[in-house]
């Protein structure tokens, strides 16, 4: 009996879509409260979400099954679920964390400081930059931008609760 790993190889994305579809399907009852249907049509606010999620679940299952059959036959589907070139997921994760951190500290430290930190970290992650480029760009993107937005466009970015 071939291992589960072999059968499911290449189906990562379809498993994810299946699970998400299932989760949303199950949460429809809770999330959408209906009192009545639309007139005499029998359609309600839940109809379309049920249809959509059912279709997602079916298609995901279809893909998993056809993938499994292909795997059992020994075909290798090189297009499915695989990065071709070398990708540094670590850098992507770092970039994501930098943005997430920006979102978290923005209300406290204000736009200028948070953005300075974000720009500097992103530039370090990408690499290939001189230190003076990092400093200059961080300063330009934080302080003048905030004032430009406030005075010309009347768009106010937060100044941070720490500073009152």
């Amino acid at each position, binding site marked *: 009996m071939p291992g589960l790993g072999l059968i499911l190889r290449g189906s990562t994305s379809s498993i994810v879509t299946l699970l998400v579809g299932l989760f949303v399907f199950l949460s429809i009852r809770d999330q959408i409260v209906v009192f009545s249907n639309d007139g005499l049509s029998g*359609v309600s606010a839940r109809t379309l979400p049920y249809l959509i999620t059912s279709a997602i679940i079916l298609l995901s299952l279809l893909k998993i099954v056809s993938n499994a059959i292909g795997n059992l036959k020994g075909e290798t589907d090189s297009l499915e679920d695989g990065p071709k070139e070398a990708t540094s997921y670590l850098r992507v994760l770092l970039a994501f964390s930098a943005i997430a951190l920006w979102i978290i500290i923005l209300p406290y430290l204000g736009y200028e400081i948070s953005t300075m930190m974000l720009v500097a970290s992103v530039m370090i992650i990408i690499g290939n930059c001189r230190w003076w480029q990092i400093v200059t760009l961080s300063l330009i993107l934080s302080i003048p931008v905030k004032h430009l937005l406030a005075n010309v466009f009347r768009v106010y970015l937060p100044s941070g609760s720490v500073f009152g």
Partner: protein
Amino acid sequence: MLENILYAISVVFLWQNIVLILLGTAIGMVFGALPGLTVTLAVTLVLPFTFDLSPESGIVLLTGVYCAGTYAGSISAILINTPGTPSSVATAWDGFPLTRKGRSFEALSVALHASVLGGLISAVALIFFAPMLAKAALAFGPTERFALTFFGLTIISRVSGNSLTKGLISALFGLLIATVGVDPIMGVPRFSFNTFYLYGGVGMIEVFIGIFAVAEIFNQIGKRAVAGVLSKDDSRRKIIRWNAIVPHYWTVIKSSVIGIVIGVIPGTGGSIASFIAYDEAKRSSKEPDNFGKGSLEGIAASESANNGVTAATLIPTLTLGIPGNTVAAIFLGALLIHGLTPGPQLFENQGGLMYTIMISFILANVAMYIQGRFALKSFDKIINIPPGILLPIILTMCLIGAYTISNSLNSVIVALVFGCVGYAMIKFEYPTAPMVIAIILGGMVEESMRQSLILSDGSAMIFLTRPIPLVFFILTVFVTFFPVVIQQWRKWRKTAVTRNLKSFRENSKDSE
């Protein structure tokens, strides 16, 4: 009528109004090109300044912003794969691959010419066909709107690239995202997960910023060999030749007409027009496989259509007092503040003003062309900036843009979440075009379908018994299945010929 036209020309060409047009188009271009700032926002911000101007000057200013803003969405769509306005989504499909190949200048050039031509044709339609088209627009009720938007949805099958299943799943998730928010018919919240922010639904712009810009930034960061420029720019072609657009003249005309027709229907919007025009251009093109990989024709179709919408949305606004889209509603508001009430009597009583609006559209497109030519040369240099500097700038702009949408971090969080989703889609090769189409059209499709079913007491026959939906239904079936049928027929013919040839040879061998 002639004296009205002469009056209009004399007013529009006053030096103050010329200055206003140039100012308006400049503002529009800036807002349209920056992701997160849309043309609607630009028009909203400019509106208060029109109160102190004369009605004609106010209109002139708003027109400049509107036309240029719609065009400028193509700039960021082409250069950084993030449409500056929803109506430029289809432009990114071919624009960004061209940037990757170093041909961004060509793409930008075609986009400019196509937009200007689309806008001019639209202005002509406004001048000559306004009342007629307006009457026709009223015939579009819920059933007709469903037929139109459903047809738009089926384009998904043609932009899914290699894997139809992946495209469908992508689209289904887009539809699901479109259902988040308050239900249009029953008024109950859906999928709000107890956060009040999601009552208003997941905003389109922050989703685009996430799926396109943030995801692409992640993508670039992830590539190990992040050295040098994003693409080598072909610096020879620095002159914008107007005859670059000539080979595509028929596409431009067709797409502009599609834009006009859809623009006239209230509540539809530039995106549907650009999708349908793109789809039609691909269908009738001699090189359909180029679409999605860098077809200038595709860019021409998308941009002529979305600028074709501009003047057309004013047709129902001015003749019926029913705004064609959000920007038209703002135009309406501007007129109301000056004490003018749109409608047929407006044409009779204020004919001069009406023709002023029409002439200013023409002037706005000309101003846009002039400024565009100057601007393109510098825009194009943007991609020469090393990614280490360019990416942080784009990222910051996107985060600010997302923030201004809701004046809070909520929309930034949405952008980041969709950035991850978009990145996953890139890595697992799920096409983003279907999801985006579904998000844009999903709400309209569901709302019009349910309205129609209420009217018909649940009978689906209503979609086949009325003339316009029937036409669209037949069109949908035709366009979806016709290419498949042709393909099969060609295959069959080939095998039949080969078979005949074989048996002929065998026969002639036997007879020897």
